[in-house]
Structures are given as C-alpha cells and as structure tokens.
C-alpha cells in the first residue's frame, strides 16, 4: 500500500462535503438537513486538520477548534428556531416552511 | 441675497407657510394668491431693472448670484438671467397668478393643493434662472414631483391616480435620460474644465485656444440625443407625447395651466440653453434632420389626432403638443429670426394654453361635462367665456392681433432658408389647428343649446372671478399688437446666444 498522502484526506473531505451538500439539497426533514449541514462543517474541519498535519503548521488545528465552537453555537440557535417553528406549524417537513414566498 | 433669489423664495416660503400653518377654508387660497401676486410684482421689478443691471465682467448674464455648494464637483448655486430667461420668468409669474386665481373652488385639503401649486411654480422659476447644469435638473425635479400628488388627488376623473402614476413615471424617465446625458457630458469633459457651471463652460468654449467643442465630436453624437430626448419627453416631442393629453385632461385646471403653459417651455429652454450651446456639433449633425421629421409629426400627425377628439381637454392637450412643433422649427432654424420667434411663441403659447385650459375647466365645472358632442350654445349662458374661447381659438390659428401670429411669422421666415419643405408642411399645420379649434368653438359655444343642458340663463361672473382670465388675454393681446415690447428683451438675448455658439 502506498503512503496515505494529503490528497487522500482531501478526497475524503470533498466526498463528505458533497454528501452533506446533497443531503441539504435533497432531504425533506429539517433535522436531517441540519445534520447534513454538520457533515459539511466536519468535512471542512477534516480538510483543515489534513492541511495542518501535512504542512506542519498548527494554524489549521487551531482553526478547527474555532469551527467546532461555532458549529456548536449555531446548532443551539438553529435547533431553538426549529423547535419554535415546529410549535407553529406542527411539522418538520421543509416544504411547509415557506412563509417567505413572494 | 439679490432680487432673483428673493423672488424664487416667495413661492417656496409661501408653500411652506401654507403647508405648516393651520389655515381654514379660503385662507389658503388668499395666501397663495398673495404669494403669487407678490412673485409677479417682483418679476416685473426684475424686468424693470434688467436694462440697467449690466453684466459684470465677462459674464453674459445679469443679476448673477453665486454660492458654492459642492466645490469638489464644481456644483454651485448660481443664478442669473438674460433676455431669454427673463421672458420665461414673466410667463411663469403670470401663469402662476392665473392658475392660483382660477382655483378658488378647491375645497378638499386646499392647503396641500396650493402648497403644491406654489412648489411647481417655484421649481419652474428656479429652473429658468439657474446657471448651473445640476441646479437646472434639481429645480426641474422640484417642479415635477408635486404634479404627481396634485393630479392624483385633485384630478378630475376616476382613473386619475393611474394617470398621475403614468405621467410621473414617464416624465421621470425623461429626467433620467437627461441626468444620464448631463453626467455623461460632465464626465467626458477634460478634467481641467470639468464643471457644472454654465458660465465657466461657456468661457472654456470661447477660449481662444479651445478645441472646437467641449467634448469629442464622436461623443457629442450620442450625448446630444440623450439630452435632446431627455428634454424632449418633457416637451412632448413625438413619439414621446402620449402622456400629455391624458395628463392635462385629468389634471386639475391649475396644474394643467402650469404644466402646459410653463413646464413644457422649460424643456425647450433647456434645449436652447444646454444642448444647442454646449453640444454644437451634435446639434448640427443628422440629429437636426431627425428633429425636423419629429417636429413635423408633432404638427401634422398630432394635429389630426386632435381633430378626432371629442373631449375638450384632450383636444387642448393635443393642441399644445402640436404647437411645440413650431417652437422646435424655430430652434432648428438656427437663425436670429427663427430662435427669437421660438421664444416668442413659447411666451404666447404659454398664455394661450393656460387660458384654454382655464376656460375648459370652468365649462367643466359649470356643465359637468367636457364632451363636445354634449355641449352646445354656451355663448348664451357664458358670453364672457365664449368671447375668450373664441380669442383662444383664433390665436391658436395664428390670427394677427395675438402674440402667436407674430411668433409664427418669425419662425416661418427664420426657418425658410434652410428648411423649405419642412416649413411648407408646418404651415399646413396652421390650417389643421384652425379646423379643430374652430370646430370646438362652434360646437361648444355657438349654435343651439343641447337638450341635455339647462335652458340658458346667463351665469354671472363677478369681476374678481374674471381677473385671472383677463390677465392672460390682455397680455396676449398686448404682445400681439406690440410685439416689440417683448422682442426688445428677446432679441439681445438671442444675439448673445449666437455669440455663445460662435456664429
């Protein structure tokens, strides 16, 4: 087996990102969309760690900490909004959340 | 603060006061009337001191006042007058007094109405005195915005709001074109002479080692039409005229008088002041022929449309569109005679159009209809109006004794040398206008009373009520009999104008 290089990690990260993006675009349940969003964020973090490891700079790993913190805050906020909206519409189906339609 | 700015402030301050103070009932009317009469008196005073107020230094304009505003952009508050602007200032004041005078009957929110009227008048006045391109534009917009409110609320038909919207958007589109043109001109100027100040531009134009023209000729060819059509939309140049009849027909009488009488002339004034002077190459290029064709359409095509109209206000609206063609003919003639005739006709037509709309408004109020097929024989019940409308009809048809004749003769003779065919076709327009005006006169005032109307009892008009109409017609007759009164103002102004374009 050849040495696992940077590009392997980047491909995995890209695949993860696309899966997350696809999930966001296609899934109908708001919570699933949220989870896919988290997948996208983690993909980004993975890429950052890979770059940091292979380039020898610690900056990427520090940035990952920031990303995880921001993700946590965002999840807290987002879930609160989703719960509030669920109380209004009694549904988590994303097609029911179109109040901003023209 | 010199007399010009003072006179400009009169309607402005008047408008603000009427808007702010809690005036009841007819007090708003009297306040507005006072403001407009004061404005007229001040304008006459300006005319009185005009001869003695010699221009300072290199300037061609008199009573100049200058306050810097945006020095980095060379945008300033600069006002001044010469013979041409003075004529139009007098027109503005007279029509303002008449317009306010005939609006005594406005009962709904009179304060806003009169404030708006005075703002329109202030805008027009300011536009005529401004010597700065951007100031010209600002005053033009000032005059335009209140028309939207006034037509929308006090207009005379059920779809007045739609008409007001249409008119305002159309005219604002025109202003937009104009703005683009002005800005393009400004930015295309070489940086050392880049200014909005018309006097400074003129000095650069006539500087001994200046190139021919302020901006490149190829640029002039596309900037000129922008400014031309920008103003042209305001002047109701064919094919941009369709806002005019609807707008005037549905506007309250005073607004129609001010709009047709004064605001249209502002567009023509703008062309003479701005595009003919600063873009001389564009003016003499093929755009002149384009303009010739368009003005013929104005005169002939719109004249025939007027013939098919049954509503008196619509017909008067088309008639005023049609007469703009003659003024254009005077402008493209590029001769002393032609341009003087054009300015004279601006003055005379302003009076004629205002008077026509005033009479039509009066008839509408008293009989409830403007449909000429429903009206008839009104000379028995409104003899004063009949005489006045007859005079308006004959003046529009170019009868000597009214100012229009002298003006039209000057225009035709001025344009004859360079534009023979155009002049001949334009002359036929005189026949067309006499057909529809006389037809209107005969149908509405002469002949039998129609069965839909009350039997004739003479409607009395007090002398005070008659005054606005008398003011308009007497000035028209005076300049008809003694055109030199006005020509002595106009001719030197136009001669200077020729100096400006270096002819």
């Amino acid at each position, binding site marked *: 087996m050849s040495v696992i290089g940077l590009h392997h990690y980047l491909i995995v990260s890209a695949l993860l990102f696309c899966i997350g993006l696809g999930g966001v675009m296609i899934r109908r349940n708001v919570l699933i969309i949220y989870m896919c969003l988290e997948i996208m964020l983690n993909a980004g973090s993975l890429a950052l760690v890979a770059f940091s490891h292979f380039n020898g700079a610690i900056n990427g790993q520090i940035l990952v900490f920031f990303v995880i913190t921001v993700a946590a805050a965002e999840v807290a906020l987002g879930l609160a909004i989703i719960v509030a909206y669920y109380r209004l519409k009694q549904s988590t189906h994303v097609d029911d959340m179109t109040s901003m339609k023209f | 603060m010199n007399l010009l700015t003072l006179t400009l402030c009169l309607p402005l301050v008047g408008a603000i006061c009427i808007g702010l103070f809690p005036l009841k009932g007819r007090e708003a009317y009297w306040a507005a009337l006072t403001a407009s009469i004061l404005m007229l008196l001040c304008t006459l005073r300006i005319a009185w001191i005009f001869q003695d107020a010699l221009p300072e230094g290199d300037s061609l304009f008199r009573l100049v006042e200058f306050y810097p505003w945006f020095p980095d952009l060379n945008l300033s508050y600069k006002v001044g007058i010469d013979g041409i602007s003075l004529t139009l200032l007098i027109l503005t004041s007279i029509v303002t007094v008449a317009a306010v005078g005939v609006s005594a009957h406005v009962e709904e929110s009179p304060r806003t109405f009169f404030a708006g009227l005075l703002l329109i008048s202030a805008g027009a006045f300011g536009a005529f005195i401004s010597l700065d391109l951007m100031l010209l534009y600002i005053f033009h917009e000032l005059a335009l915005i209140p028309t939207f409110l006034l037509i929308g609320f006090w207009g005379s038909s059920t779809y007045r709001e739609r008409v007001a919207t249409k008119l305002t958007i159309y005219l604002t589109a025109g202003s937009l074109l104009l703005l683009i043109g002005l800005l393009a001109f400004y930015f295309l100027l070489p940086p050392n002479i880049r200014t909005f100040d018309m006097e400074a531009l003129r000095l650069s134009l006539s500087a001994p080692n200046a190139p021919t023209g302020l901006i490149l000729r190829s640029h002039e060819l596309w900037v000129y039409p922008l400014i031309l059509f920008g103003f042209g939309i305001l002047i109701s140049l064919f094919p941009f005229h369709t806002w005019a009849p609807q707008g005037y027909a549905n506007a309250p009488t005073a607004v129609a008088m001010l709009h047709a009488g004064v605001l249209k002339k502002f567009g023509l004034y703008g062309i003479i002041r701005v595009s003919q002077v600063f873009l001389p190459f564009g003016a003499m290029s093929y755009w002149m022929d384009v303009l010739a064709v368009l003005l013929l359409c104005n005169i002939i095509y719109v004249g025939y449309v007027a013939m098919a109209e049954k509503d008196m206000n619509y017909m008067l609206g088309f008639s005023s569109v049609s007469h703009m063609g003659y003024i254009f003919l005077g402008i493209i003639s590029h001769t*002393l005679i032609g341009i003087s005739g054009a300015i004279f006709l601006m003055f005379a037509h302003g009076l004629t159009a205002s008077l026509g709309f005033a009479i039509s408004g009066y008839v509408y109020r008293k009989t409830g209809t403007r449909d000429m097929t429903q009206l008839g024989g009104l000379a028995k019940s409104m003899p004063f109006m009949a005489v006045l409308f007859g005079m308006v009809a004959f003046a529009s048809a170019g009868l000597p004794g009214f100012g229009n004749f002298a003006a039209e003769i*000057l225009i035709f003779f001025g344009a004859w040398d360079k534009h023979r065919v155009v002049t001949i076709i334009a002359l036929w327009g005189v026949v067309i206008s006499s057909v529809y005006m006389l037809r209107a006169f005969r149908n509405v005032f002469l002949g039998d009373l129609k069965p839909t109307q009350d039997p004739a009892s003479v409607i009395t008009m007090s002398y005070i009520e008659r005054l606005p109409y008398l003011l308009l017609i007497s000035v028209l007759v005076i300049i008809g009999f003694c055109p030199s009164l006005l020509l002595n103002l106009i001719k030197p102004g136009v001669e200077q104008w020729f100096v400006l374009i270096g002819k």
Partner: protein
Amino acid sequence: MNAAWLLLALPLFSFVVIALFTRRMGTLSSLISTLTSIILAVVAVLLFVDRIPAPDAAIKWIDFGMLTISIKLLVDPLSKLMLLVVTGVGCLIHIYSLGYMKEDASKGRYFACLSLFMFSMIGIVLAENFLMMFIFWELVGVSSFLLIGHWFERPAAADASKKAFITNKIGDFGFLVGILLAWTYFDTLSFPGMQQTLPNSIGESGTFIAMCLLLFCGTIGKSAMFPLHVWLPDAMEGPTPVSALIHAATMVAAGVYMLCRIWFLLEISPTSLSIIAWIGGGTALMAALIATQQNDIKRILAYSTLSQLGYMVMSVGLSAPGPAMYHLTTHAFFKALLFLGAGSVIYALHHEQNIWKMGGLFGKMKITAITFLIGTLALIGCPGLSGFFSKDEIILAASHHSGHLHALYYIALGTAFLTAFYMVRLFTVAFINPAASRKHDSHGDDIHESPAVMTMPLILLAIPSILVWVAGIPGYLKLGHAPEHHGNMVMILSTLMFAGGSLVGYFLYIGKKADPISIPLFQHKFYFDEFYGVLIKYVQQNVAMVFHFFDRFVLDGLFVTGSGLATNFMGRVLSWFQTGNVQTYVVWLALGILAIFWFMIQ
C-alpha cells in the same frame, strides 16, 4: 401726423370703444360706427383729390434687419380708387344698417364688427408690403366670421361662419407660402420696393410660377374662386347689409385688388396668367349656371357675385388688370345696390327669401323696385349703364387672345347671356309676377316700402351704377397695357347677349307660379358641397381617426402602457425565484459557487 392715418385709426378706435364700453347701448354704438364711416368716406375723397399728401411715416412692427414688417400706407391711384369704393359703399351700408338692424338685440356687437371690418379692409387697401397685407387679410377673415355668425344661435349661421373662415384659411396657407417664396427673390417685401428692385433677368422659372400661383391661392380663398368657392353662398346666413358690404362689394374684391397690386410680378409669367384666367372664367361660367336654378334671392345674388368675380379674375389673367379694377368698381356699386334692395324686400316681407313666395313687389315698393331694376340692368350689361362698359372691356380683352385663351372669349359671352337670363328671371318672379299668397303684417296692411333710411342708400347707389363709367377708370389706373381700340364686334355681340338673355328669361318666367325648368345639377350647385362633405368625412375624419387610433392604442397602449405592463410582468417572473423554500436557495448558492470556480479556473 398725416390725416391718412385716420383711415386706419378711426375704425379701430370705434371698434375698441364699442366692444369694450358701449356694446349694450345699441343706438349709441350704431351712431359711433356710422359717424366713423362717414368721416372715413370724407377722408378718402380728400385723399383722392390729393388734398392730403401721401404719408411717409412707417410704424416698425417687427424689426429684424432682413425681416422688417412695418405698417406703412401706400397711396397710389389703385389704392385711392379702391378706398373710394370701400369707404363709399361702407358708409352707405352703415346708414342702411341703421334701419335694417334697428330691432336687432345685438346691434352693438354688429356695429363693432362692422368697424373692425372697415379697419381690416382699409388696411388691405393701404398695405404697403406683403406682410401688412397678410395681417389685414387675416383680420378681414375674422371680421367676416364674426359678421356671418352674427346670429350665432342659429346652427346654420354658426356653421357658415366656420366654413368661411376655414376655407379662407386654406387659401391663406397658399398665400403665405407664396409670400415666403417671394422673400427668396427680393430683399424686401414692400410693393414699391419689390417693383423697383425687380431684376431684369428674372425669368419664368418653375419656382416663379409656383410663387405666382401660390399668391393667387390667396385670391382663390378670399374671392371664392373655384375650388374654394363653397363658402360664399353659405355666407348669406349673415345679415343682408353684411352680404352687401363684405360678400359683394369689398372683401371678396380684395382678392382681385391684390392681384392688381402684384401685377408687376404676374406679368412676367404668362403660364400663371393663363391658369388664373381659366380659373376665373371657369368660376364665372359655373356660378352663372348654378344661379339659373336657385330660388333664394340672396343665393342668386351670391352666385352672381361669384360669377362677376370670375370675370374680374379672368380679366387679370388675360393681362387686363385695368378693366378688372374697373369692373370691380362698377360691380361694387350695383351689387351692393342689389343686395340692399334684396334686404329691403326681405325686411318688408318679414324675412322671406324665396322668390317664388314674392311677387307683385313692383307696385308696392316703388323705390326698391326701380333701383333694383337699375341694378339689374347694370349687372347684365344694358348699354349705357356702367356694367355694360366694364364688362365690355373684359370681353374685349378676351377677344384679343389667341390659342386656348380665345375659348374664354366665348365663355365670357355665354356667361353674359346666362347673367341676363337669371337676373331677369329673378326680377320677373320677384317683382313683376302676381303676388303669391302671404299673410298680412300686424297692421293688416300688405307690404309697404321700407323706411327712408334704407331707401336713401339705394338711390344713392343707383347713381354710380348708371354713371360711374364716366370716370374713365382704366385710364386713371394705368395698369397693364391698354388694349388697342376695339372694333364694334364685341359691343354688338355683348348687347346681343344681353338682349337675348333678358328676353328668354322674361318670356320663360312671366306669370309662372313655379319654376318650369328643373336641372338638379345646377340646383345642387354641381354637388360641390356634397363632394367636400364626403371628402371631409371620409378622408379627413378617417385620417384623423386612424391617427387617433394609432396614438391611443399603438403609441400609448402598446409602447407606454405596454412597457409598464412588461415591467410588471418581468417583476412577476423574477419573483418566482422567491419560493420561500430554503433548499431552493441552497441549490442556487451551490450553482453560483460552481460558476465562480469555473470562471476562476478559466
């Protein structure tokens, strides 16, 4: 200040005073106006006998260097003669109107307009330059409008006045284009100036012919030549003194006067002269034919005026402007006489104008009848009266030409025959035939003679109708070239026409109660009114309708409202992007980022 300026200032002053101040006071207005007209006549006579020198002063109305319109009086034999005619006939008609319009409610307005007319007409006569003449030409048109439409509550009068003005305006259009063309040839537009600076090299070019014909357009309009003749018969809706003054003696003659004024231009162009002659001759013949079948006394006289105007215009076209003015002068007197006589008859019969309802007037209205007879005889060319001599000169001029113009000689003779025919028809039916049944007036009397204030002018007009040929007018005018001395052939032939026409007319109509001949073509005036009506209705109105439709639905509807609707539509289409669904937005976001990457890689 030269007294000749009074000729313009006085009637204007009278008009302003009456119009502004004394309009309600009818009698005062009538006296002001009549007094003015008498003073005008006196001044005209003084001017004629050179007691007043020709004025030199000019009022500069518009001064632009190369275009200077000045109000200046031109006093030469032509204008002095015309002044006499205008003021003389005018004065007599003012006096006549004192009686005729005594019971009219708007007397003041009538006399104001009469003064305005005198002002305008004298302005045309004394005009020293083209533009001054044009100004007064238009003013005369508006005076005519006001006077024809004096009884404006009647729809027929309102329509007639509008028709007159617009028809005139069409002629004025051509006139003004002609003046503009003249301006290209000369630096000045003043008549003496043009005459002096007329270059010898000026030839008969296309532009020159166009100029002459366009100037002639003014005459076609004002003097009611074919094809703009339709307004004159309708103008009879006005009061009869107006018809006498304006539409017989003076205003319609202004066209002929103008032609004589510009004779120095016309004589250079034989082509234009031929066209002028043919239009004149054609009008004369056509009008005479129509007159033979008309039943309204004023209409017959109107068509007779048309016919005689045709003679005058034809005479100018035949290079005989002197005889044209001569005939204008004689015609002014006897035509005014005839109209005033008709007015007297109408007045006495309480506004009955149909000749078949008249009759037996010879016995009841001696003065009117005799003066009417004198006028008739003068008009139809009875030897010894003035009309004979003037008409004779014209026919003589026609006989001198060869080629196609010679046909006009026969037309002139034929028209003379017809003139005699229809005038004798008129006189026979109205005056000689037994009275048609009619109601008696309030006093139980049958009709009686008109008051002296009306019969006096009749008598005064009868005198020049007989004698004015003594004055030797063509010699006085020195216009054009005097024809060589005539043979007697023309005189014999014209007398024969007079006699023949009169006899046929007399014997055909004596004792008849209704018209034995009926020719619809003539009765309906060659269907010109119908033709113009169709022309206006189907051509002009349809053009107007098409333009109106185009303006409203295409320019306004399609483009303006359409652009508004298009903007609305675009707005609505673009708002489809706002689905409210987050996922849609995410998709667009992703696509956008891909696009950016794509462009960055490029």
